[in-house]
């Protein structure tokens, strides 16, 4: 079809499907997660964070795009152990998250949860789960409660490509479809479950279609494009909120770092990682859009960088200076004390 060329030759690409304000917001949110995770990685290297630490670097567009479409006053979120980004995007305090990572008394779970297990009822963030795929039926139950209370909320239930192979995912799909529950299942397909690629783990790699047998629509989304995520999320959330039953969003994304901190990553090449970083990085993409369309100046972005750096530095200092939990905490919150 012939088109009238609206863009001046050699100048701007197509107008982004997001406003300047939205793009600036995405940039800030994604950069916040990235810098937070980089700092967490550093603290791990210094021995200040121990045990597990699953970084979200590379996948930032997924949670930021989803939250941009969500009704943050009503909707709930549940995810796996790769949860730091989700917590920040849900509005949890970076200081409390970092302090939990370092196992301190001022952490969200007073040091008892650790990197994988944090919660905020206030922000409707319901964990932080270490058993692969357990969050899927739990998210289904959160959706059941949204429906039962008629509070208008939707539960966004995040799970990985590896988790997609667990039986309880399918049991949940069936139940959610049967009862038309307000749940969006957000598949974060980062191509690997630990050291096993999707191709080596899944008989059919189109994981977003796995609701088909239950009549659950699934859509594949470029999870490295925050605007595409936001748009897909909007559509799905509107439909789910209106009572039409669950949906699956299959986010194609990528984790840059190892599965956890001690991952020699022999299952993929360095070239594969650097190619994704160079060509698809979600933050670079938004940065380029901002610059290209004069939605932000270099100076403004530098200022954002500096602000985020300050927040992350403050969180790290807070996390290191907070006291360790008192030994008496061993016995609290096991059962309700009377």
């Amino acid at each position, binding site marked *: 079809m012939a088109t009238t060329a609206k863009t001046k030759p050699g100048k701007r690409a197509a107008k982004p499907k997001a406003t300047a304000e939205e793009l600036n917001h995405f940039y800030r949110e994604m950069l916040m997660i990235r810098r937070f995770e980089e700092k967490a990685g550093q603290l791990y290297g210094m021995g200040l964070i121990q045990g597990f630490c699953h970084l979200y670097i590379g996948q930032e567009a997924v949670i930021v795009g989803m939250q941009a479409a969500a009704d943050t006053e009503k909707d709930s979120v549940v995810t796996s152990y790769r949860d730091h980004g989700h917590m920040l995007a849900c509005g949890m305090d970076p200081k409390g998250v970092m302090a939990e990572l370092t*196992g301190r008394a001022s952490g969200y779970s007073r040091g008892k949860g650790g990197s994988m297990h944090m919660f905020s009822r206030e922000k409707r963030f319901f964990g932080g789960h270490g*058993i692969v795929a357990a969050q899927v039926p739990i998210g289904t139950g959160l959706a059941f409660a949204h429906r039962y209370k008629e509070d208008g909320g939707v539960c966004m239930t995040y799970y990985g490509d590896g988790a997609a192979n*667990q*039986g309880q995912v399918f049991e949940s799909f069936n139940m959610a479809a049967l009862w038309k529950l307000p749940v969006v299942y957000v598949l974060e397909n980062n191509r690997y479950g630990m050291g096993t690629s999707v191709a080596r783990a899944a008989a059919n790699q189109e994981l977003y279609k796995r609701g088909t047998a239950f009549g659950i629509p699934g859509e594949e989304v470029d999870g490295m494009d925050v605007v595409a995520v936001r748009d897909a999320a909007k559509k799905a959330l509107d439909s789910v909120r209106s009572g039409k039953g669950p949906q699956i969003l299959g986010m194609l994304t990528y984790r840059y770092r190892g599965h956890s901190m001690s991952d020699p990553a022999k299952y993929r090449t360095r070239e594969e990682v650097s190619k994704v970083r160079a060509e698809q990085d979600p933050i670079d993409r938004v940065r380029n859009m901002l610059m290209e369309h004069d939605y932000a100046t270099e100076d403004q972005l530098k200022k954002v960088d500096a602000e985020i750096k300050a927040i992350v530095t403050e969180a790290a200092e807070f996390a290191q200076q907070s006291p360790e939990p008192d030994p008496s905490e061993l016995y609290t919150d096991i059962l309700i004390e009377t």
Partner: protein
Amino acid sequence: MAELTYREAVAEAIAQEMERDENVVFLGEDIGKAGGVFKATVGLFDKFGPERVRDTPIAEQAILGAAMGAAMTGLRPVAEIMFSDFFAVCWDIVANQIAKTRYMTDGQVTMPLVIRTANGGGVRFGAQHSQAVENWAMMIPGLKVIAPSSPADVKGLLAASIRDEDPVIFFEQKSLYAEKGEVPDGEHIEELGTAKVVRPGDDAVIYALAAMVPRAVKAAERLQAEDGINVSVVDVRSLVPLDTQTIFDEFRKSGRAFTVEENPRLCGWGAEISSLITEECFWDMDLPVTRITTPHIPLPASDNLEDAALPSVDRIYNTVREGLD
């Protein structure tokens, strides 16, 4: 003799048995190409190939169900459940299917399979990746339950488990994987259902399992050095079958016993030993059996809290010394 780590001994045992018997197959998550998340199965994939060493999807019910089905006609599967906490995801297959098949089939169908799993705490993995759950398995009739503390025992007991006609739950201790020890060269096989006196003594006896064995030995050495108290340490090793002969013989030397258990207190294996001693050795008892355990709590992630929860050398030393006072 060669010096091996606990994790190397795992791979050696499996390799030894796979070489000997082509019915032995091995399956689990990231056990093959990646060599296991704890690097305990490095080399097996290259040596035996993808038909015998299978990387599976993340699907514990299917892994154990498939291991069981394969065992029904004589294969000898070794399955890995990456962390013992994940047994909760597939417990039906263990408790209702595997454990009861020999019984329900009037002995027609045996279950020559092994489920290996990384058990226990001390590595800051938090409440869902640190539990010592050997008592879960011990409570189910129809399972054998093994938990070695040294590389030599890993090799000998794992090999014996693979050769055994009954299902064996084999608890490897994740905090011990890096520990080194002498392991006999060539074929090495130990007997299931045997405890081992790792340190003789006649003032009292400490029964310990897995990671608690080296701690109990350290505490015993301190008691000897600082207080002149001569404590024996028994590595229980095999919870089912339980070597009551060795347990009672060792007890009768002093009439004073302590257990050191990593599991939360209620229904830990030490309660069973305490009960057996009370029933069988009552007239030899000088003191009530004292149990040193993790409190009845989930395990915290924070290092200072986790260290306070698990029985430490100090706690063992102090409890025994005060108990004998």
